[in-house]
Each structure stands twice: as structure tokens, then as C-alpha cells.
């Protein structure tokens, strides 16, 4: 029974977070894309970009709504499902949680203003300025909440006296060792995922057979813009991933070792991609890159990498997180590759960057980016099992004892299915019933049909 409530508590939290991070990522990344598009529209006096910003913003509100309500859910669930954790950790992490709410508040106010003031100012640039607090608010709430998660990985900023936290320093807790690399990786991957998702939509529209010249020009512009941004953030994100791996090697070696099935501490460690484990816990059928793990961990092909055997058996994370790590990295590489390929193809005059296969690859990379975010988070979270606060409190000590937790799981499962389905249905209708060419003509009657500029 006790095991059951712990397992159900974990599943409920995993489900809520898994659902929420999709919308949270959109909430962080999409405002930046909207803002850049609006700015380009104003500077270039090109209504296509302004229309991009408007249409994205319209879809964005729907996802924000789901993000807000699921965010409220996870905020409350922290106390409901993990009451013992919050009682202890609340003493140390209340500050960033609180500041996160402030950032969210700030963002909420300006989203409301931004959406309802498109035509209320004399100069369009005034309206554009309103997008900046949204980007800052969204980014800052990601920063603060990530510091909370980082604290759970590398607790800091307190002393332990007789089993309770004493001498609490809220700022040190917030700026714990894991915070910088995590924030860097979370932000860069959010911007990357949103850019590539919007690119996937544009590519999908371009694959349609009947497309007016006007709409085709609009979507081509969108594709070029989003993929350029994708390339930039894919490169930055690669760097962020590298920083994170080096951090893990120093501060949380068991997480990196479990991800790489690296059991014995050794110099010149190999990087292992995919494969499976035989009965003796030896990788079989893997793709092996000699000495690369050492390079990933310490920037030196012959450095020593701590193995999993240094961690007591009952404190090791599960070994299946290897696949999560691999999938995340492979997708990250794919996103960088495909955006680079598009940019190269578009530079060479003879080649056609709107080739069917390339477009399908771009369509595919949208959902893949979000899968990579899920995989990355599963890896990060499962990688610190069995701890909820690494080194101080295990997950089973933190969970609720309520027998109703299983029922709540089903209730929330139902809620997320309904919300997810309706969100997709509403978004589809929103864009289907309001095609871009009609809207362009309505907003900008002067625009010439088939304007290719």
C-alpha cells in the first residue's frame, strides 16, 4: 500500500509536469518569435511579418490558457502530493517560487495588454514595446523555477542541524551549483523548440497542393525566418548541453554515468549510443565513440570519468535513462543538421530549398523537438532517483500518505486528455476557418496579389 501511494504520487507528478512543460515551453519561446516577427514587420514595412506575429499571437493565447491552468495545478500539487517535501524544502526554496509567481504576474498583465492593443497606438512600435515584458516575464519565470529544480539536484544554502534545515541563506540556495547550466539549457532549448515548431507549421502549409501565390510567399518567408532562428538556437543549445554534461561530471557523476552506462571509473572513457545491456550489465549492440565521454565530461579525451560503481547500489538512478539521454542528444543533432541543410540549400541557386523531402523533414522536426524536451526532462528527473532532495530526502519520504492519490491520478488524466484534445481542435479550427490570404487582404487591401518581395 505504501509503495503504491509513492508510485502513484510520482506518476501523477510526472504526468502533470509532462503535460505542463509542452505549454510552458511554448510560453517561454513563442513570445520571442512573435516579437522578432513584429519588429521585422515594422522595420521592413512588410505586412507578411506583421501578419505572422498576429496569427502566432492568436494561437499563442490558447496555449497560454492551458499553460496557466496546468501551471496552477503543478503549483498546488507540490504541496498536495509532496507535503513532507514542501514542509522541509519550503524553508529554503520559497523565495524563487515566490519570484516565479511575480514574473508570471508581470507576464500575465502584459499578455492581456498586448493582445488587445494591436490597433490602439499611433505608432506600431509602441505596441511592439509591449512584447518585451512578456518575453522577460516568460524567461524569468523559467529561470526562477529552474533554480528550484536545480536546488533539488544540488542542495545548497543551508546547514543541517538535528535533521532540520538551519542557517538558511535563500540566495545561496537559489544560486546553487546546478542552476547556471540548467537555466542555460532550459532557455536555449525552449527557444529552439518553439522556432522549429513554427518552422514545421510553415513547411506543412507549403506541402499543400493548392496554395495561392500570396499564401505561398507568406509561408516561405515564415520558413526562412523560423529556420534561421532555429539554426542559431540549435547551435547555442548544443553548447548548453555540453556545459550541462561537464557540470554533471563534476557535481552529479552518478547521473552522467547512468546515462552512459559507464560503470567503472576509467580514463579515456567511451561514449555509448543506444544498444542494450546483457545479463552481466555489459552494453551490447551499441555504437561506440572511443574516448568521447572523457571529452564530453572534462574537455580532454584522456581524462578520468567517475563510474557508477562509486555510488552505492541502492542510491543509483535507473539504467533505462540511457535511452532518454541518447534520444535527446540525437534529436538535438538532427535539428541542428536540418536547419543547416536548409540554409545551405537556400544559398545555392541551383538547388530548391522547398524540396518535398526537406520540407517533410522540417515538419517532422517540430514534434521531435518537443519529444526531445520531454526526454531531456525525464532524464534529468529520473537521473536523481531515489532522491527528491539529492543527499537529504528520498522520494518515498516525501510523498503523501493519502489513499486517494490513485483516484486523483485518474481524475487528472481525464482532465489532460480533454484539455489536450480541445486545445488541438480549437487551434486547428482557428487557423482553418481563417486562412492567411483572406486575412491579409482584409487587413492590407493595398497588398498586391502574388507580391513576391
Amino acid at each position, binding site marked *: 500500500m505504501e509503495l503504491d501511494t509513492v508510485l502513484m504520487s510520482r506518476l501523477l507528478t510526472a504526468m502533470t509536469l509532462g503535460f505542463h512543460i509542452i505549454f510552458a515551453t511554448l510560453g517561454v519561446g513563442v513570445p520571442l518569435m512573435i516579437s522578432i516577427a513584429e519588429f521585422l514587420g515594422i522595420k521592413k514595412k512588410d505586412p507578411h511579418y506583421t501578419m505572422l506575429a498576429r496569427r502566432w499571437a492568436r494561437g499563442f493565447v490558447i496555449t497560454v*490558457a492551458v499553460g*496557466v491552468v496546468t501551471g496552477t495545478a503543478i503549483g498546488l500539487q507540490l504541496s498536495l502530493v509532496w507535503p*513532507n517535501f514542501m514542509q*522541509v524544502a519550503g524553508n529554503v526554496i520559497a*523565495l524563487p517560487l515566490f519570484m516565479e509567481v511575480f514574473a508570471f*504576474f508581470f507576464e*500575465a498583465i502584459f499578455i492581456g*495588454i498586448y493582445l*488587445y492593443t494591436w490597433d490602439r497606438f499611433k505608432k506600431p512600435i509602441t505596441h511592439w514595446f509591449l512584447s518585451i515584458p512578456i518575453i522577460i516575464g516568460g524567461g524569468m519565470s523559467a529561470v526562477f523555477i529552474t533554480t528550484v529544480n536545480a536546488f533539488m539536484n544540488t542542495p545548497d544554502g543551508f546547514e543541517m542541524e538535528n535533521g532540520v534545515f538551519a542557517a538558511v541563506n535563500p540566495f545561496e540556495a537559489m544560486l546553487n551549483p546546478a542552476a547556471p547550466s540548467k537555466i542555460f539549457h532550459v532557455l536555449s532549448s525552449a527557444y529552439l523548440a518553439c522556432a522549429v515548431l513554427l518552422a514545421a507549421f510553415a513547411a506543412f502549409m507549403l506541402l499543400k497542393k493548392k496554395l495561392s501565390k500570396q499564401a505561398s510567399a507568406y509561408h516561405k518567408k515564415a520558413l526562412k525566418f523560423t529556420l534561421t532562428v532555429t539554426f542559431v538556437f540549435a547551435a547555442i543549445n548544443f553548447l548548453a548541453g555540453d556545459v550541462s554534461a561537464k557540470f554533471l561530471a563534476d557535481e552529479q557523476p552518478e547521473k552522467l554515468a547512468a546515462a552512459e552506462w559507464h560503470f567503472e571509473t576509467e580514463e579515456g572513457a567511451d561514449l555509448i549510443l543506444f544498444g542494450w545491456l546483457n545479463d552481466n550489465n555489459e552494453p551490447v549492440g551499441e555504437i561506440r565513440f572511443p574516448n568521447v565521454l572523457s571529452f564530453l565530461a572534462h574537455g580532454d579525451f584522456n581524462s578520468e570519468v567517475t563510474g557508477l560503481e562509486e555510488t552505492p547500489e541502492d542510491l543509483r538512478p535507473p539504467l533505462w535513462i540511457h535511452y532518454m539521454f541518447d534520444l535527446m542528444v540525437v534529436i538535438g543533432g538532427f535539428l541542428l543538421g536540418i536547419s543547416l541543410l536548409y540554409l545551405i540549400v537556400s544559398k545555392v541557386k541551383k538547388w530548391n530549398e522547398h524540396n518535398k523531402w526537406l520540407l517533410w523533414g522540417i515538419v517532422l522536426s517540430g514534434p521531435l523537438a518537443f519529444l526531445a524536451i520531454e526526454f531531456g526532462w525525464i532524464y534529468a528527473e529520473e537521473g536523481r532517483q531515489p532522491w527528491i532532495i539529492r543527499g537529504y530526502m528520498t522520494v518515498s519520504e516525501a510523498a503523501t500518505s493519502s489513499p486517494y492519490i490513485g483516484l486523483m491520478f485518474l481524475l*487528472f488524466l481525464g482532465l489532460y486528455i480533454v484539455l489536450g484534445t480541445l486545445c488541438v481542435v480549437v487551434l486547428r479550427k482557428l487557423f482553418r476557418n481563417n486562412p492567411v490570404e483572406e486575412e491579409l487582404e482584409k487587413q492590407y487591401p493595398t497588398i498586391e496579389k502574388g507580391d513576391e518581395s
Partner: protein
Amino acid sequence: MSYEIVGLAVLWIFLYGYLIVASVDFGAGFFAYYAKVTKKDHIINQLISRYLSPVWEVTNVFFVFFFVGVVGFFPDTAYYYGSALLVPASIAIILLAIRGSFYAFENYGSKKSNVYMFLYGATGLLIPASLSVALTLSEGGFIVEENGVVSLQYMELFTSPLAWSIVGLAIVSVLFISSTFLTFYASYANDKPALKLVRNYALFWSTPTIIAGLTTFIFLSQHNERHFQNMMDLWWMLGLSVGFFMIAMWLLYQGKRYGLAFISVMLQFFFAFFAYGIGHYPYILDPYITIADGATHPSMGIALIVAFIGGLLLLIPSLILLMRLFLFDADYVKGKK
């Protein structure tokens, strides 16, 4: 004054803020649906959606703010309330989720749906009812801790006249506050037909509000003698509350100065709510958590208060901007922008 009292006072102000803005929001959802059923939706729906669309998200934040703040200042509340409230709070979250997202689906989506409208209206009354359970629990007697396991006594809760009178009070107050605000908003927009309709709502819901207030008070005296006595010592605050209620009623009845009427209603609830809150002293959860013992470390408490001040310096100008653009921009309210 010690930091925990400052913290609690600020949190109480935020909860009061939520009470007002959420009541307007929840009630408006109900009236929008009610008007649709009685085929009067063409009269007031435009008015309601013009106010609500830009601010619905802000309303939600007041609530998140309050509970994150309480858990931050008083981590023990997470343990007791968190353990005991799993079921009622989960239901409240689901209602909030349905309400918030369906509002967006309905208003920003492409198709108007009766089902969304109904759920939006119904959850507007169920959410205050489910949230008010937390207030009932704080009076003590419903949460039991045995061998480190905290549990909620459902039988006692469901058979408690106090619990039901608090639920009743929450619902009718929501409708009263909301209709008074809409009356003010309609008169500001110079929308005569809508004004006539919502003014009638306001006059109608005033009576149940004051009756529910009195019955709650009586049942509280039977359930928690200490809290009741503390509140009696604050008789002047309760008196002011009733006084402002009467001013609001008189203005509504006279049909003039609706802005002042709404402010009177706000003050009515302000004094009642603070008399209730101050009377709760020294407990947060009777008898498990007191303000003094339950507070977080001083360093965290002070950091939170500093964050508070910093946050408010950022928020207040933004809120003023929001209000000037939407609430107090006569052209916008009248539908010209």
C-alpha cells in the same frame, strides 16, 4: 512588528484582492450563462467579455500568489493542508483548469459553444464553494493527525452546519460582489439596458448575502468559541462592515453613484474579512499551526518580504496601466476601441 505578522498581513491582503477580483470574474461567468438561458445574453455579454478578456489571467495569479506565499512563509501549512486537502483542492484545480481554458477556447477560439458557456458559468459557483473548504478547515476539528498521518474527517465536514454556511456565504457573496461591479461597469459604459438588468441582480443578491453572513457568524460561535469571542472584540470592524453594506444598498436603490456603491461593497467585505482574519490570531490552523511557531526562518522571511516589495514596485504600475487601458478608458468600455 515581527516579520511573520507582516508576511501574513500582506498575504491576507492578497487573499482579499483575490476575493474581489475572482468574485467579479466568477459571478460574471454565471450571469453570462444565466442571461443566455433567459435569452437576455445580447444585453450583457458584450459588456462582460470586454472587461474579462484582458484580465482573466491576472485573476488567476492572485490565487497562485496567495498559496505560494502561505507555503513560503509557513511551510507547516504545506504539510497539514497539503495532506488533508488532496481531494478537495484537486477538485478545485480541475474546476479552475476547466474554467480558465474553456474561457480561452470560447473567446479566442473560432466557435461559440453552449457547453463551454455552461461549464464556465457552473464552475464559477463551484470553485468558490470548493475553495472555501480551506477556510472551514482552519477553524479546527476537521483535521486529525495520528501516527504522522494527517487525514481529513469527511463525515464531520459534510455534516457541519458551519461548513455549509461558509459555502453558502461564498456563493452568494460572489454573486453580490459581481453584480455590483457589473452595475458600475454598465453605468460607466452608459449601457442602459445592461444597467437595468445587472442592477436588479445586485439588489436581489444583497439579502441572501447579509443573511448568510449572519448564519455563518452564529455557527462559528458554536464551533469555535475563541474565534467568535475574538471577533466580538473587533465589534467596530463588523459594525463598519454592516454600515458600508447599508450605504451600498442605499446607493444601488437610489440608482446613482454606482462607483461609490461598488467601493462600499469592497469596504464591507474588507472589514468583515479582516475582522475574521485578525480574530483567527494566533492560529493559522487551529490547533496545529500558530503564526509564531509555523513561520519560516527569519532570513527567508525577510528575503520574501524584500521580494514582495520589489515585486509590488513592478506590479503596481503595470496593473495601473492595465486598468487605464481597459477598465477606466471610457471609449474602450463603451466598445469604441
